[in-house]
Each structure stands twice: as structure tokens, then as C-alpha cells.
């Protein structure tokens, strides 16, 4: 299918690349289907472009690649997904100022590679995702990406 993105233009996306977020995101309940697009030349960043609105997208960070100590296992456990799921954190850029960018370590986005989140036995090949909340982890909601940045 063709996915329109206000940031990336027209994307031709194979059906099996689509990721379903059954509950959407907190505060953004209609953000339920998206696709991961690597950011050119910045291998740790991805756009999570949603299909319902060209302007709907998150900037995600491949947190495992950047911070090997981050507790991805806890995120997968909270999301109740298989161990081969991928964990990303959402990047916020306040006032369009990249040096103030923060990432949300408290509520990471967990994306399964194939299985249905709510039904681990399901044979569906559809990729599913969810936003996990790491209660009592001590991880901050706004972790500054850059020294002297926001938080």
C-alpha cells in the first residue's frame, strides 16, 4: 500500500511491514497502524509513520543499540511479547530545538516481529506493537539526549 507522510513523501509499503497498535497510544488513541522507516544516515533513529494521517509520526530511537544497559527485557515483559521483539523509545524535540531533545525511557515502544501481542499462540504474521510502562524502574520520562539538553 502507499503511505503518505508529510515528512518522507510517498512510501510504498509491503503489507507485512505494517505494524498494528491495537490500543493506539495514550493521548493518541487513533494512532493504530504504522510503519518503521529508518532515518537516512542515522542508523539509531527511525520514523514511525502512521497510516491514517500523513502528519502523524514519532521519531524513535533504537535504544538497545545506543544504550546496551537499558532494560529491554523489562519492556518486553511489560508488553508481554516474545523475546525477539524490538524496543524503541520515543524522542521529543521541544521548541524544534534538537539540542533539547529528550527520549522517553519510562514508556518505550515494543514491536513484535511477528506474533500477536494479546494472543501469543496466534499464527498471524501481522506485526503488533504497544507502549509499555516500566513502573518502578526509575527510568525518566524525559531523558536528555545531549549534554546540557532538556529534561
Amino acid at each position, binding site marked *: 500500500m502507499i503511505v503518505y507522510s508529510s515528512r518522507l513523501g510517498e512510501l510504498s509499503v509491503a503489507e507485512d511491514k505494517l505494524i498494528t497498535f491495537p490500543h493506539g497510544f495514550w493521548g493518541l488513541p487513533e494512532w493504530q497502524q504504522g510503519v518503521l522507516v*529508518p*532515518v537516512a544516515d542515522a542508523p*539509531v533513529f527511525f520514523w514511525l509513520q502512521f497510516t491514517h494521517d500523513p502528519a502523524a509520526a514519532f521519531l524513535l530511537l533504537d535504544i538497545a543499540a545506543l544504550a546496551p544497559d537499558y532494560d529491554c527485557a523489562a519492556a518486553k515483559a511489560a508488553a508481554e511479547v516474545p523475546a525477539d521483539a524490538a524496543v524503541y523509545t*520515543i524522542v*521529543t*524535540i521541544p521548541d524544534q530545538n534538537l*539540542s533539547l531533545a529528550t527520549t522517553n525511557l519510562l514508556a518505550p515502544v515494543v514491536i513484535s516481529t511477528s506474533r500477536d501481542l494479546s494472543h501469543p499462540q496466534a499464527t498471524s504474521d501481522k506485526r503488533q506493537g504497544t507502549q509499555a510502562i516500566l513502573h518502578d524502574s526509575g527510568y525518566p520520562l524525559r531523558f536528555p539526549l545531549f549534554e546540557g539538553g532538556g529534561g
Partner: protein
Amino acid sequence: MLVLARKIGQKIRIGSDIELVVVAVQGDVVRLGISAPKGVPIHRQEIFDAITAENQAAADVSVADVICALAKLHPPSSQGRVQARNIFLFSPKVSPDAVDNKVECSARDEQLSGKEAARKFKED
């Protein structure tokens, strides 16, 4: 709002499958136990509010020059992953100058970056 008085150990049932029990009361702190089906998210209100607000703030990353700025922070000529690690707090720190976001980036560059991303994705 329905207000009910309960003693320690007493329960409240919400619908057919959600159960609330007063576990303990110590001063002004009430400990509650909650049993609910797996699909029902249960969170402290202030955490829910904070994450909701943060999601909405993150949704506002509509900056066209993010890709361009990121690209300049991660030169394609070097090993991107190593380069990325160097600019983040997680590992070796760098001076703020190195992450100055005032990267010069023309509108044409932005478009190219976007198209490039799309092209790479299609190849993938």
C-alpha cells in the same frame, strides 16, 4: 461519583471481572489490590497523565530539518553507530558545541534526505 466506605480486606467489584481490595491503610496512604483481565491497563493517574502529555509533545516533532540535522550529526562516511554513541550521554560525553542544532541545511537538502529515506526504505 460513587463513594463507598470499605474496611481492610473488604472488596469492590467493578463489572464482572475487575476486583478492588483494600490491602492496608497506614496514615494517609491506602494500599489497594486490583485484579483485572490482562488486557485492562492499570496505571497511577499521574503516570498516565505524564505519558499522555509526553506522547502528544512527541507527536509534534514536525521539524522538517530533523532528518537533515541528524544526518549531519551522523556523517555517512564514518561508522554511524559508533558516531551516534559519541554524541549521547549514555557513553563518552562531548562538548555542547558538537551538538549545536544550528546546522545549515537548505530546503533542497531536506527534500533529498526525505526522498533518500523513502528510497532506502523501498529497497529494504
